[in-house]
């Protein structure tokens, strides 16, 4: 099964646009539950984009990689995070370092910066997915924004996942992904990182009674 390049490009562009919009949506919401499901949707779209690149170029390992990514990052990881959330007494971000409006503005600004800075900055990207590269850069930066401005443990994991999605998008917009073993390894690392984060979020609940990293401010110097 193959896809003609024209259709492939259109689908990838649509995915890239949706991925960016979801990124802004995560920056805008204070509900941790909603941000988990949004990042799951974003991961699924990233996987779909990978599959479409694979269909459009005949890079068959991207099909399997994309399907695995959808299964792991779109379903397993959100379920794990959701189970922590159900135990947690607080399910919304409060006292944000950056207010709601400010984080929306920042997220939109990131998209514009990424779009202008990346287009044409990297030579030789005559790839079907070249429009995904600005989106990828935007998601890497949005992930960093979330990690830097949120305080709940789960929100930080969500930020990490956005960052990972950005890297995955970079991977197949530049080179049709990495060698398959490497892709597998990266995916495996993401999975166990989330499991370990789950373990620690649980311990924070047990020991500190909260998953707010506000309580984690004792180590200095």
């Amino acid at each position, binding site marked *: 099964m193959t896809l003609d390049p024209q259709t492939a490009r259109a689908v990838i562009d649509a995915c890239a646009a949706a991925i960016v919009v979801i990124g802004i949506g995560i920056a805008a919401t204070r509900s941790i539950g909603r941000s988990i499901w949004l990042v799951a949707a974003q991961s699924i779209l990233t996987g779909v984009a990978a599959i479409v690149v694979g269909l459009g170029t005949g*890079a068959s390992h991207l099909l399997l990689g994309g399907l695995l990514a959808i299964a792991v990052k779109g379903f397993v990881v959100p379920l794990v995070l959701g189970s922590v959330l159900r135990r947690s007494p607080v399910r919304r971000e409060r006292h944000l370092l950056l207010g709601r409006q400010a984080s929306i503005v920042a997220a939109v600004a990131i998209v514009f910066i990424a779009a202008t800075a990346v287009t044409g900055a*990297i*030579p*030789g*990207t005559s790839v079907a997915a070249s429009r995904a590269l600005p989106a990828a850069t935007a998601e*890497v930066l949005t*992930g*960093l924004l979330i*990690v830097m401005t949120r305080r709940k*443990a789960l929100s*930080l*994991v969500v930020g*990490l996942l956005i*960052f*990972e999605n950005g*890297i995955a998008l*970079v*991977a197949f917009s*530049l*080179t*049709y992904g*990495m*060698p*398959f*073993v*490497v892709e597998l*390894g*990266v995916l*495996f*690392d993401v999975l*166990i*990182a989330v499991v*370990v*984060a789950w*373990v*620690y979020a649980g*311990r*924070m609940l047990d*020991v*500190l009674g909260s998953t707010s*990293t506000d*309580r*984690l401010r*004792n*180590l200095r*110097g």
Partner: protein
Amino acid sequence: MTELLVFLTIGVPTLAAAGAWFADDRRAGALALVGFGMSTVGGLVLAGLVFAGGTAHAFGGLVVVDALGAWVMALVLVVAAIAGAGSLGHLAHERAAGTLRPRDVGRYYALLLLFAAGLAAVPLLDNLGLIWVSIEATTIVSALLVGFARTPAAIEAAWKYLILGSIGIGFALLGTLLLYASSVGVLGETSDALDWTRIVGVAPRLDSSLVRLAFLFALAGYGTKAGLVPFHTWLPDAHSEAPSPVSALLSGAALAVAVYALARFHLVTQAALGPAFSATLLVAFGLISLAVALPFLVAQGDLKRLLAYSSIEHMGLATLALGFGGHLALVGFALHLGSHALAKSTGFLAAGALVAGRGSRRIGRLAGSLAWSPSNGRALLVAALVLAGLPPSGVFAAEIAILLGGVRTGWGIAAGIAAAMLALAVAAVLFHAMRVSVASPRASTQVAPGPAGGPVSGRGSTRTRAGLLAIPLAAVVAIGLWTPAPLMAALEQVAVILGGGRG
């Protein structure tokens, strides 16, 4: 033959880890002994073969071990053996203090074995993508070990380490991707287009702007893992909150492995763009790390954090040496990584034993350790003097070689600044070492030893632990006086791989 040795080095500890996870305390200890023992023996034989007979290949090109890889693998395995043996005393103390839960021993050994195997795998792999996967896997496994004590401070340190470490090393993945993008253009889309052996060969034909960007991301990513300033903020927390044998492995081996990965990127970048670009960045980040670590060394009141900031200082120095280049500085680099690994791992074990005895990490409360815990106190004093950079020791010899080498390759001003900062670091570490060793302890300590206070281990185990600490320290000191010919030859081979030519 190489296949078998690689299996002993990586495969056996991984299998032992799987067994230890489910085993009871006694069997877990036996499995750990087998895992660490066979892995160290296998790895050291492999390293010996590489130094005697040249680069080894195995598993259809998946594994390539040159002199640099063999050296880093050997030091990882020696530190792992020290940490594994040091775990006996640590766990005995935890058991006596009643902080161990059922099955904790098996899980501890399983994670420690996996951590060591993951670190030892990095210098054996040819594929830069798999090197990334392996380093990230060690981050995740060691995050579980850092928070093993389950105190709020340990959970905080582990959390910071996991999140900052994963974000930081994500940049290294971007760097790896960009390098792949540049090499695909030359080598085509094959799975070996990420093999450093192949990339170095075609480096002059790579797209230079992609390589430049790739190195910047790799520097930020692996720089985070190596504890280079400004990516170091997780390090003092993780290295001080972790159980002491884990601190030994983190500071002695994990940092060296990150520097190794950075060195491979540096070699590719150098071959593609010429020496100036990456060398200048390495020298700059090395100097910044030295400068920022210094005030924290001076004003430090916590013994384990003192050792952690000393690691930032020493990784800054190693990065500086890579940037200086040239035969002499690179021989110094290899000697420095090895000596630091031995001294820092024993230092953390001795510090851990002292901290367990007093129930506090404050230098003021540990003061006078030579009197109240002679064998550990002596080991800590020697380790601290070596790490401060006092002669005679491998660290001192390496520092002199690095600085002189820097002058020879035209980095005179940077070498001068580094020398001044190293001198100040000597004074700072020496001051704290003297306080811990001979100052009179604060009155309060005698009245109220910490919750875990009092001697817990029997005479026999004290003596074994003293020997465990004395042997590596004696080796580090002896290297400063006399370097055996085979060791010198090995160091020179590492320098040649790093582009330092023959002396």
